[in-house]
């Protein structure tokens, strides 16, 4: 391979880019499938998700798994098992299902989600300005290290001076810059806006929320996380569970805890308000409270209290308040109706009804579709 070939773009890159495009297209096309199945969550490693994609292989007429097996070499008597995990030990059953895994970054995934759901970019609040790391060398100054000397400017000044003083000889155009001529590149700090965001997930863990309902919440929150993380650099997440009383928990507990008490939603909203007030001043933070439940509340009085809490505190501070109602066999679904009535036409409150896994995508769209 010639030297130039290596300097230029490699030929394979065109094919890689095309492959990448195709993968993106497939994900987009099947987004609903990927969103409704939570397998992706387990496939997260750092900033990369690995997605199984069998249909990208070119199909051929070829043999399925051979019931007769194959030929091998080694010790053992008839009837002895081939050592498991030893390469293609299970060639007999595994050969037919060829699953290809492609890797994609969470950013890319968020972008695809955004494109497919036509999510608007969020207009963040707050006006923190932070100097960008490194800054940019856009300025000039008369002093500096030689390595940053701006050759053209220095030359120009030297030329100007020599012409002005009459020492310039067109027949022997030698320019010798003196100290005064020298100009150096200088760094200018560029201010970039820095926005903070906090997501506060609240979930009803009372007896009526089953495993399926929690799985739905888990999946939905993965996608909400993915999207919001692509919109804010600095993001925090908090988790609150509640039955008759609320408490803040860590992520693991949030998804796996199961209680069996009654349901008092106001307890969660109260705790949420306290957390916001003590830790996340609204002028510096974009605040996203999400609440998931099956729609049962202790009493109408408590619901009234919730509405008051929302009106007085949460809605004053939060960018938007989202309530997702996961349908369950026991939930009456009353709470969503109550919220809808109380905040009719208020863009700060978004409610959505998640009937089953297939409803997740639509719910995400309604939550994030306003760009708040």
């Amino acid at each position, binding site marked *: 391979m010639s030297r130039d070939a290596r300097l230029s773009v490699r030929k394979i890159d*065109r094919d890689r880019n095309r492959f990448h495009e195709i993968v993106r297209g497939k994900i987009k096309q099947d987004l609903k499938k990927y969103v409704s199945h939570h397998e992706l969550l387990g496939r997260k490693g750092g900033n990369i998700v690995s997605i199984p994609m069998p249909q990208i292989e070119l*199909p051929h007429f070829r043999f399925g798994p051979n019931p007769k097996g194959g030929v091998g070499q080694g010790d053992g008597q008839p009837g002895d098992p081939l050592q498991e995990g030893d390469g*293609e030990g299970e060639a007999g059953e595994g050969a037919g299902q060829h699953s290809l895994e492609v890797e994609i970054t969470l950013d890319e995934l968020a972008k695809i989600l955004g494109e497919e759901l036509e999510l608007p970019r969020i207009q963040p609040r707050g006006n923190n300005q932070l100097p960008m790391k490194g800054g940019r060398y856009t300025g000039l100054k008369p002093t500096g290290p030689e390595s940053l000397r701006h050759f053209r400017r220095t030359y120009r000044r030297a030329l100007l001076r020599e012409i002005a003083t009459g020492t310039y000889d067109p027949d022997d155009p030698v320019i010798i810059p003196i100290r005064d001529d020298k100009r150096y590149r200088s760094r200018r700090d560029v201010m970039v806006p820095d926005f903070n965001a906090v997501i506060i997930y609240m979930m009803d863990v009372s007896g009526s929320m089953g495993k399926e309902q929690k799985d739905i919440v888990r999946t939905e929150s993965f996608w909400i996380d993915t999207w919001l993380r692509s919109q804010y650099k600095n993001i925090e997440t908090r988790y609150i569970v509640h039955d008759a009383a609320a408490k803040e928990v860590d992520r693991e507990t949030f998804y796996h805890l199961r209680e069996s008490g009654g349901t008092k939603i106001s307890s969660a909203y109260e705790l949420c308000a306290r957390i916001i007030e003590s830790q996340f001043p609204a002028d510096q933070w974009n605040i996203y409270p999400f609440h998931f439940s099956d729609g049962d509340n202790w009493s109408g009085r408590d619901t009234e209290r919730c509405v008051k809490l929302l009106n007085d505190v949460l809605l004053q501070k939060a960018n938007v308040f989202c309530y997702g109602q996961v349908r369950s066999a026991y939930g009456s679904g009353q709470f969503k109706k109550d919220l809808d009535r109380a905040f009719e036409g208020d863009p700060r409150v978004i409610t959505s009804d998640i009937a089953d896994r297939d409803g997740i995508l639509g719910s995400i769209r309604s939550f994030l579709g306003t760009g708040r």
Partner: protein
Amino acid sequence: MSLTPELEAARKEIEGYAREYGLDCFETIFELLDSDELNEVAAFGGFPTRYPHWRFGMEYNQLDKGYSYGLSKIYELVINNDPCYAYLMRSNMLVDQKLVMAHVFGHCDFFKNNLWFAKTDRKMMDRMANHGTVVRRLMDRVGLEPVERFLDCCLSLDNLIDPHSMFIRRRTEPTEADPAEAEEAPVKFRAKGYMDAFINPRAATDRERARIRKEVAQDAKLPPVPVRDVLSFLLEYAPLKRWQQEVLEIVREEAYYFAPQAMTKIMNEGWASYWHSTMMTQKILRPSEVVDYADHHSGTLATRPGRLNPYKLGIELFRDIEDRWNRGKFGSQWEDMEDHEQKRRLNKKLGLGREKIFEVRRTHNDVTFVDTFIHEEFAQAQKMFVYGVDRRTGRTEIVDRDWRKVKEQLLFSLTNWGQPYIYVTDGNYEKRGELYLFHKWGGVDLQFDFAQATLKNLCWIWDRPVHLETMLENKAVLLTCKNADGDITQRELSPSEEPRGIGAG
């Protein structure tokens, strides 16, 4: 990049040994590449340039991942071309480079001399580059997506070729004989007028006339005999645009180029391993290199229970053949010997081994190689077995060590280089211009989802309904694809139905 002076010296030395041993190679050009360059070439199937296609990118990503995680590493790549090009990985140690070079000369000799490669294009390097240019030009003219979609379809059919057809000498092109004329002229013996009725009796001429009529009717059938080269059939009869023909032609040409390599995997790797091992141990190795060599050589030949290593099987077979012909352990006299011990120990000191393996490498392919040269003693010494899945436990386990069963199973998996036999039997099925394919079932079903997807691709190219007769769970079925975007229908064929395929039933 060309070789460093050190490697160039090694190359000269090794090429000299190769020639001394009687290897007969094309001129062999070595290039030294970094891992990413080597992965690129490997993704392109050994060539520096191919037509643009995403699967090369996918291939590259996998190689790249395997390499960067330290799971896999390509030692060498060699392509069948005159001159022969071989690539070395820059980061390999010197002893590896020597091993690889010796190995490459083995491959190169095999490419040049093995009968099955005789019809491959020895200027494939240039041709592949030309194919790239043609496809890029078509993409500029027709658009990336239509060309890519069509390429995908063609590639999905690229195993539907007939590697033997390269060797078939066609009869002279059938002339456009007028059926009526042919019908009227049954062959007669020459006879004088008054003897005609006796020498050419009426009954005989009628029979002959009927035969000719039948023949003519059969000629009208398309294709007259079942065709395995589905791609050529499509080229000739599918409603293709000019650019589509060009693309299909390219895919077919490349499929034929690669087919002999799939048909001689065991032999080719065995032959190359035999020669690197012979040359390294007899000539090339310095004392300080022995341990590294032994380590890497044994790594190449390592076997795992559920997997047959073609390097290992190939080299052992060649060694066994050499030994047998050196000692006269062949022919019916040897085969019929009753006393096992005597049979094993026989040594007539004929010294024909070297000559024999050179002959074998010229005329055999994997199927005939395995069929001719695996014998009882060999299968036992190599600890070969048949494995299978136990239906009760779902475990994969050793089923049998009988050498006949081993051979049968091995031959089965090698037949038609592991691909199913698919024929076009009718290009005008039911007189509606539909395409009828027949899968000659040999004990294993097709992978169903793939078969469906492939059938859709075929339907897209044929632009009329396409049928595939195959077996599913011991029942003859007919899969039909009416249009490429629609579903596949499946119908069980009743035994009374006339089998459309050849040798069906």
